[in-house]
């Protein structure tokens, strides 16, 4: 199961955080900070998996992250998820964002938090992976957008 999805930039400023388990406000911030510390220290040429974070879950949990330009995408998962699978999921997520926003950048994430969350909701639901196919995701998001627009125009 996926426990949390975090996106933050090179300075550790959170850009998106989604927790699939309840933590208190403070713990969430602490988790983000700790994760950033762990992840930012690592070189470009080391592997994308991390263990040993203390706040979420302990030894059973792993951080799987990817670094794109100014942003870190971090998934915190338990042992039932496949590492490579999640790594692929991050790639799909980013590609989807790229398609939806046409050349996505950090600002898109800031100004359209709701859209990003909606895309994420089509991929991961309640901590379970729902869809890994980019085209499917985009169709879903598009159809929702269309329907909203049609409701708004009259």
């Amino acid at each position, binding site marked *: 199961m996926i426990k949390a999805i975090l996106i933050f930039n090179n300075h550790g400023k*959170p850009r*998106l955080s*989604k927790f699939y388990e309840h933590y208190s406000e403070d713990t969430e911030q602490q988790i983000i900070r700790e994760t950033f510390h762990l992840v930012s220290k690592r070189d470009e040429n*080391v592997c*994308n*998996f991390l263990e040993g974070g203390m706040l979420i879950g302990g030894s059973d949990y792993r951080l799987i992250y990817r670094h794109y330009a100014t942003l870190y995408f971090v998934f915190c998962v338990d042992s039932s998820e496949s590492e490579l699978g999640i790594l*692929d999921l991050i790639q799909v997520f980013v590609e989807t964002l790229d398609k939806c926003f046409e050349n996505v950048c950090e600002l898109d994430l800031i100004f359209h938090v*709701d859209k990003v969350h909606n895309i994420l*909701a089509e991929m991961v639901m*309640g901590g379970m992976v729902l869809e890994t196919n980019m085209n499917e995701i985009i169709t879903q998001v598009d159809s929702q957008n269309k329907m909203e627009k049609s409701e708004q125009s009259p």
Partner: protein
Amino acid sequence: MKELMVRAIYCEMLGYEASFSYIHAIKLAQQGTALEKRVGYLAVSLFLNESHELLLLLVNTVLKDLQSTNLIEVCMALTVVSQMFPKDMIPAILPLVEEKLNHPKEIIRRKAVLALYKFYLIAPNQVQHIHNKFRKALCDKDPGVMTASLHIYLQMIQENPEGYKDLTTSFVTILKQVVGGKLPMDFNYHSVPAPWLQIQLLRILLFCSTIFLCRDVAALCIHCYCIQPLSSFPAILYESAKCIGNFVLSLKINLKYLGLKALTYVVQQHPKLALQHQMTIIECLDHPDLIIKRETLELLFRITNAQNVSVIVEKMLDPFLKIMLCCCIIYTLFIVLILFSYEEYTYAPDNEWFIETMSTVFSVGGDMMQPDIPNSFLKLLSEGFDSVEEDRKLRLFAVDSYVSLLQGEPGKLPQRFLQVISWVLGEYSYLREELEAATVLRLLAKLLDMKSTSSETKSWVLMAMTKLCEGGAGVSVTQEVCETYGSSLDTVLRQRAQELQHLSQDCELRARVLPRGAGLEPLEVDSSLSFLDGFVSEALAAGAAPYKAPHQRQEELAQAKALSLEPYGLSLPISMSSCSIADRQSPTLLSVSSGLSTTLKLDGVKRVWGREGYLSEREPVEESAHVEVPSPLQSPSQQGEADSSQSQTLTPIPTPQPEQEKQQLASSLFVGLGSQSSVCLMGKSESTTQRFRRKAKDLAVSSLEQTSQLSQGPAAANGICDVELTGSDMSETSPTLIRDNGVVAADPAPHEDPDKLKDLCLRTHLPAEFSGLCHSEITPLCTNQTLDFSACHLQKEDSLALVVFIYNSSDSDIQEILLELDSDELEVSCVCDSPVQEARSHSVAVCQYSLTVKRPSVHVEVVGTASYQFPAGTPHSAQFSYKLPLTSFIRPLTVSTEEYGAMWLDFSHDTKQKLTLISDGQEPLTDTLNVLKKKLQLHVVEIIGMEGIVACRLLRDQPCLMHCRLHAGTLSVWLRSPVPDLPDCLMYHCQRALQEH
């Protein structure tokens, strides 16, 4: 509004609380148009959690949206439902979500399945009735829905593998379809069809426990990941080991990581498989990535054995200095390894090595380490091993090295280490005769003066000084210290200083309080604190209130808060009598006075001096040296062997320097993994990779040298790993064809009515010695085409016998049925001559086991595996489990009232509860106890008025005592036993017995 909500979300993410907007988020979800609704739902799912009270306001909205005809609204509602929904509200929306399983749109079906899965995780019993619908989802024409339903099945099968056996074929079909590329192209990942789906299916199949080979699935990435689930099948394991090699060698760092991980799994099953990868592993040790390094260390930890421990530890010690800060876990692992190695194998190279390594560990690890590590080290020192001489040497060396450390620069040492040092010096410095106590005292006093020393350490130091201040030596030092700390603000320090002062002046008292070497005798603590009786009764006579246990005080507090519905007159005596029952005294004593509930209970106060009280003056010192069980030891011959082979591995080889070092390291790291270790690996590594061919050859020379010197026999020389491996696999199931005669009977009559007759005919196969005893119903355990397994248990006086019947319904004989039983809670021992059985065609073989309880639990379970082979040669296996209640292990315990009273005080684990009385007859207490006696086989010791005492034992010889008392129409039962969980389990069964009556 929508825009504002998005901003609130952003604030919340940055860590500023925006609770004022929660209610607006709900309102937005309720009233807005589709777009606003979406933002509202999003905000709600980010802001609130399951237990938030505002969520109740959302339930209606969700209900409305679920019924909506708008797809998007349904989708949104389902998403919110799966993100967070209060448990008690599930029934309200469950029918609606179920309905969605038949929705024409597959996206809705898929989301509904996941929402139901979430419900299943939160409240499994509420979703029980819709299992059939899950099955429909599994067969859905849309692969997405099917994939979603796999989540549920993985979970359910994990919990109950037996229940879903029939689905195995469906899973296999699905897997075949996936592998066969029947899914749409969209599911392909780098031209492998739906790899993650395949993994999930394999996991499920693993739990279904069907042996299922899928070699052609082995697209590389899957293959690696499957190792974890598949590691129980040796054949596949071996295949995969080859692939792992490629992974570990891979230049892609992520694959390398996975490869190491997989190797760790594999090695746990077959350490020899690591041999072919040893050079790679060593390279990984020097890898710049910490995580890779960590994985490698973990791997090394798994292959530690008698001969390579010192090399591994050295290797670990080196990188761990650097990475320690980021991986505390590996650090702990490492220390445990050292302690473990020293204790378990008694092969730690020698005392000096051990002490020195530990010193390094302590001074590096410092205060970060967990407190139990120094404790276990000290325990090891004080317990010692079999030979007194060795122990003395070890301690002597510890004293020597610590004295020299203190003479150096003690200021740099971490607090924990200082504590260890002071304990060791206090306890053992007398062993070094030429070392004067005064010198040690002076060194310790120096520690006290340092600014950096914490007060906890200071009290350790003072304690050590107390042990040392014998005779006239160092009087001046102690005097000075006492003066300084006698007036300290820290009460602990002050107390220690006072102790030191008194004991250093009074030799006789000192000898009594701190006898030399006292650590070796187990300390007996009078847990009832009987020596305080006089003091307590004096205090009570002077008007003090009787002691009440904390939980009772809380209970009374709660009672006081609640409305009292009873008339005033009654409340006083009730509270009095309840306080009399809660204290720690024998109920037999109590029963004398229980009639007159208004008198003061003078014994009721014994626990006034609890854990922190009076005893603490002496206990801490001696408890740290508390010894109970000497550790089991292995034969020292192993060590000798280890030494010889270690010296062999270091024979010089004419190769370039760095290469040579690596090889040496390799051969010393992997020595002892299998008897012909270094040779085996040669043959292998040569064939595996081009890259290491040269190194391997060099290594071959060296190891051939070794073998000739060691002359390990011809098997070593052929150097082929698989031969050796399969050989050992075969020998595990070696054919011992001993027939259990007299147990395997002649052909039973051919039977028409299978169930009844089978039971009857199985009954005739019960071993003769059980004929008089009553046995439980014979329950079928598992069945496949040829063999039927069934079992029953029999209660004997001193044991519980489990009889397993194996009925062979095929036309051919089946030989070598290997039956292995195992249980977490029970100890299973086989009564037959051998665990291997033979079942003739159409006849029954019987295995007998005797069971005793290791760890009490309400129900205990025996899990068994039977592996057998057809004459044609294909191996098969079957698994089954047999559950039985704890009551089958309960026997009456005949004791007199006096014995009961004595035992009552000794037992430390207890539980109390109020049970319902059986009140149809004249004497409710006697009736109730008789029911218990009949159903649970208890022994009623005595019934006095309103109280009864009952005793029983758990096989073998673990007593449990029960004290019952009539109280306000219920039966207050108090159970006590020396075994931790026993009282709770027994209480459960008493409750059940009374309810069923």
